[in-house]
């Protein structure tokens, strides 16, 4: 039952009518969307400009909690910047980082300070009103290179973060609006293709400036106090909305497991064990066992004392310990992975710290989901995050069969090819990121060749890849038979085969789901697992770690064949409409 205007006014120190609240809420969202747009349109790197591997948001001045985030940001960044912004605020308070001044912009990519992997570089800018910081604007862009042992940063065999690239604590890249050329020079000396970075750096900074200007107009129009009150109220309501959704789940504990093939160094599976517990009520004011609990709200002091209503607790106890290879996740990424999975389930709940309040993630201490320095982490954003999301889906499809799908392919399918093109007399680094089948769901079969759970980008056309790199695709096809059987079957993966035309190259893979296919749900079967075959002199070679290996040498005529996972099936295959079965055969999806 929605609350009346009377209830609302009680909660805010300042009277704010529900209509103004809607309008300010939409206005804050607009500011973020405009930052996203500016960043992408002005960026040089295809990874930002085309793949939208970036995100922009507004964060609270006191604790960095999320106020609003652009709708077009990469899903893996849901909520992440509130952790890096909080760390920045804390370091400024403690004097470890220089105090801000107007027009300053900080840069940071340290994974252990509320980050993801090193390639995700964050900018943060304070927004001043009357000499005080009103809020922070922050954005993240995935830089195409950040140094380290492998171009692009996705080393499958790093064992320490230093091998993964340059690590930046929060420092001011722009001081009172002027770029610090010395810091920039240090960065450029440590990364590849540095000459094009200036365009991306300007794009990233200009997105924040555009955001500040637009936010300033909103504040001028409605008044700082009204907007501040609206932010508080919107946060409360997002929490309320998430609780209302959670209320649909019957009380109980729902368990699931998801498996990462290996860490890339030690060939053993990494296990994620998840228990999601739904509890309806907690007596108001009762002290809770909160040690080790990270709530979505960065400060949980407020949440502790008020009626928490419905909430979900995510417990990863029993998951594998930290690993040697780069498949560790830092806490911020683990939390974001839970949030993005919940957002896939309830896409209409607005993104703000309030929406995360009812989601209690118990810090998975001692597991690979809470990695500390110097554990390597390059796989956390692209792969481990998707296994965490899969675990959330697999747990919650049980009580929410209408809302949650069977497991999607859940890998970014990263193939890197680095080599020298003798015809053009230059070295190159090529990436092929691939999609896979989505899980069947209550209404439909899964989508074929969908983007990764954590991504939203388009795949590059084969014709563009062949223009730029000395490769020839012999096949780029739907992977027949890969969708898991079910009342609604999984979608199909991709089956591609590419041949090196000239020179020599080295192929590296960071993929997943090679050991087991994406899980079926409610009686549906698993989708087909990922398969990588490297054909050298006509002889097939399967990487030892199935989905991860680094620097496989190739020469002209050698081929790489990849079959990406199909989605999990949903429901008992016996209940599939016989006409649909016939149609699948007629179209050659199954033979």
């Amino acid at each position, binding site marked *: 039952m*929605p609350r*009346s*205007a*009377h209830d609302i006014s009680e909660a805010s120190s300042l009277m704010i009518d*529900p*209509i103004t609240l*809607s*309008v300010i809420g*939409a206005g804050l969202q*607009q500011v973020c*969307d*405009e930052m996203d*747009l*500016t960043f992408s349109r*002005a*960026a*040089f*790197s*295809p990874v930002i*400009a*085309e793949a939208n591997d970036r995100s922009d948001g507004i964060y609270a001045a006191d604790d960095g909690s999320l106020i609003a985030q652009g709708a077009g940001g990469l*899903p893996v960044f849901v909520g992440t910047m509130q952790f890096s912004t909080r760390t920045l605020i804390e370091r400024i308070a403690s004097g470890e980082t220089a105090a801000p001044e107007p027009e300053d912009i900080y840069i940071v990519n340290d994974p252990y300070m509320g980050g993801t992997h090193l390639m995700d570089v964050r900018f943060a800018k304070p927004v001043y009103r009357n000499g005080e910081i009103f809020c922070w604007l922050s954005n993240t862009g995935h830089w195409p290179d950040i140094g380290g042992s492998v171009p692009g940063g996705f080393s499958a065999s790093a064992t320490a973060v230093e091998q993964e690239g340059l690590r930046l604590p929060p420092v001011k890249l722009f001081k009172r609006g002027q770029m610090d050329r010395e810091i920039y020079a240090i960065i450029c000396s440590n990364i590849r293709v540095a000459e094009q970075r*200036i365009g991306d750096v*300007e794009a990233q900074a*200009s997105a924040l400036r555009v955001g500040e200007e637009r936010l300033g107009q909103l504040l001028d129009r409605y008044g700082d106090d009204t907007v501040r009150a609206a932010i508080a109220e919107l946060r409360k*309501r*997002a929490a*309320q*909305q998430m609780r*209302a959704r959670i209320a649909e789940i019957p009380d109980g504990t729902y368990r699931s497991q998801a498996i990462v093939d290996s860490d890339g160094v030690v060939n053993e599976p990494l296990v994620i064990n998840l228990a999601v517990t739904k509890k309806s009520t907690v007596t108001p004011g009762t002290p809770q066992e909160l040690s080790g609990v990270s709530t979505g709200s960065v400060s949980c002091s407020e949440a502790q004392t008020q009626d928490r209503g419905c909430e979900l607790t995510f417990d990863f106890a029993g998951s594998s310990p930290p690993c040697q290879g780069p498949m560790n996740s830092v806490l911020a990424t683990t939390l974001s992975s839970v949030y*993005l999975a919940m957002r*896939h389930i309830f896409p209409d*709940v607005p993104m703000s710290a309030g929406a995360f309040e009812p989601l209690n993630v118990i810090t998975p201490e001692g597991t690979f989901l809470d990695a500390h320095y110097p554990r390597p982490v390059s796989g956390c954003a692209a792969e481990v995050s998707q296994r965490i999301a899969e675990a959330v*889906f697999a747990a919650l499809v049980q009580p929410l069969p209408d809302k949650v*799908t069977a497991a999607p392919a859940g890998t970014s399918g990263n193939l890197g090819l680095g080599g020298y093109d003798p015809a053009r007399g230059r070295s190159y680094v090529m990436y092929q990121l691939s*999609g896979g089948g*989505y899980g069947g769901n209550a209404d*439909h*079969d899964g*989508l*074929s*060749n*969908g*983007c990764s759970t954590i991504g*939203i980008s388009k795949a590059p*056309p*084969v*014709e*563009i890849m*062949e*223009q730029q790199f000395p490769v*020839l*695709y012999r*096949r*780029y*096809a*739907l992977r027949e038979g890969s969708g898991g059987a079910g009342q609604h079957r999984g979608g199909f993966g*991709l089956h591609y085969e590419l041949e090196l035309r000239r020179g020599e190259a080295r192929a590296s893979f960071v993929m997943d789901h090679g050991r087991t296919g994406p899980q079926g749900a409610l009686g549906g079967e698993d989708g087909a697992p990922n398969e990588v075959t490297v054909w050298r002199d006509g002889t097939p070679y399967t990487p030892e770690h199935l989905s991860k290996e680094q620097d496989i040498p190739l020469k002209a005529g050698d081929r790489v064949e990849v079959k990406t996972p199909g989605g999990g099936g949903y429901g008992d295959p016996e209940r599939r409409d016989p006409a649909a079965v016939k149609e699948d055969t007629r179209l*050659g*999806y199954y033979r």
Partner: protein
Amino acid sequence: MAAVQQGGFVAGIDVGGTFTDLVLLEPHSRALRLAKVPTTPENQSFGVMAALAAGQADLTALDLIVHGTTTTTNAVLERKLARTGLITTQGFRDVLELGRRTRPAPYGMTGTFRPIIPRDLRLEVPERMDATGTVLTPLDEDALRAALTTLLAAKCESLVIHFLHSYANPAHELRAAEIAREVWPNANVTAGHELLAESREFERGVTAAVNASVQPLLTRYVDRLRGELERGGYTNDLLIVNGNGGMVSSRFVAREAAKTVMSGPASGVMAAAYTGRRAGEPNLITYDMGGTSTDVSLIRDATPAVSSEIEVEYAMPIHLPMVDVRTVGAGGGSIARITDAGLLEVGPESAGAMPGPICYGRGGEEPTISDANLLLGRLNPDTLFSVDNSISMEHVAAIFEAKIGIPLGLDAHEAAAAVIRVANARMAGATRMVSVSLGIDPRDFALFAFGGAGPLHAVAIARELGIPRVLIPGRPGITNALGCVVADLRHDFVRTLNQPVASVDMSVVHTILTDQQREGRALIDKESVETARIDTIRSADMQFVGQTHLLRVPLPDGDFDHDTLQAAFERVYFDRFRVRLPEIRANLVNLNTSVIGVRPEIDLAILIDSDARAATLDEARTGTRRVHFDTGWHETPIYRRDHLPAAAAFTGPAVVEQMDTTIIIEPGDHVSQDRDGNLIVEVAS
């Protein structure tokens, strides 16, 4: 070439979702007739003939009929397509089904997608080019013939030939099309490169597949319509409006049928550009609000923004130059509701045409924007509650109170005001996003309001966006049909080069541009339509090396050198991003030429009958009623648009009513009229 007489009758007919509109005019005698009849979705030609009859058009005396049709639009959206087969490069038959690895929305791991050609009708043949156009595998002609036999046996009516890298070397596609045309029983053979010589196999393939799949439908439709017109005595050419805003003879239109998919919205934007140019407002944001959605577009220097990357729906790109019209959400039928966070939201759900808003009396029970306008006195209750409508104002109010008012602690009228305020804020935000994504600040533009509901909201939205002026044309509700009448003949050409500017052979550039221009002129000469002059617009799509987004750079007439090209690009880039990057080289990606046969000028003042105009403003006033604005209720004068004296000017609040729309002027806004009878609203800040 049939000469068209000066002073002849021209009919513009636009088929919309609900109504088919006719504008019939004789520019020299200043005769004008308008008609609005129901659209006949099963066969739009019935509605077209009915509109001509309703407009008492004498087909034997008509010199030109220009037609905007949604035949192909509906066919694509409803997937009622001709049975079409695809022959493609070995290893690539699933390109049309795999798409670009996307999902419909960033969040939610669900969605469905039906490829435009089903898998069993997509066949492969051995052949292969590389990216430079070098043949790696020759075309296997036996395999091709076998595939043709298979597709014909499967009763395909249309055929697409789509080979990898055909934009670089079309030899295999040309040869395959030649062989196909020997055996194919009709003209419905589309080779991918003929329509679009650009790389990106999914987009080029879908564009070709859409073209082939709608070609037979469009051919049948225009043939039937032309037949009926001829039986009625019409002897001249029937022209069809294309998505690029130009028009093309119905005899040639099917060859590039995919270009008609966005025909409807394009003609409205063309009318806006035409009206704006005459009104001295060459820079416009168009705001076309209808029953279910609102379309926004941008006009700069009287030229509509054009995009070659239109997506008709999820994963359905048509990469042909078309007027860039963005749908931004709410329409009059959009439903208001309270979310479970207790916030008021308007749209995206719509009551559509059936049941429609509550006030239509067709069983609608959800509060909509139209109902809110009615409750607030912004719409005339007498017009809406006709005799056969069993709905009362009290009934509408009761629903608003129950569904919106009580949860928010508001009465029915406050609830309606809240719906309008939230809807306006959202539409303004969406409009702003469109302008920003096109690189402009909306405050530098005027707002052009049309569509049945556009003028109800335009002034409020302009205020929200800081837009200083709103222009409301003489006949906002029939703007698309007017667009048919004023449309020019137009042919667009694109050629991909994709080379660094420094290494481009400028003689090749000039040869391409000259060839494009010559081909355009030849096509216009074939069309038997009077033109005042022929314009050529040349542009280049450019980027910095390493970038993926393109910027369109206008090219000067005549010859130009490398430095001119580089400088032109840097200027456009700086205007857009406020960044200079002298250290980075530029790429020349595409060369574009549009050849436009400009039609003789039409005096738009005839849209409003000067004889009907009253002598004084008071005489144009039909009365007053209580109307709610942001500042509360005002006893507000109501004017009849066509009775307004030509020189009348007044200050809001005011409501101006006309057959096809209602115009809301808010308190303090000043209204004047120009020589064409457009209302110019100066928005008070």
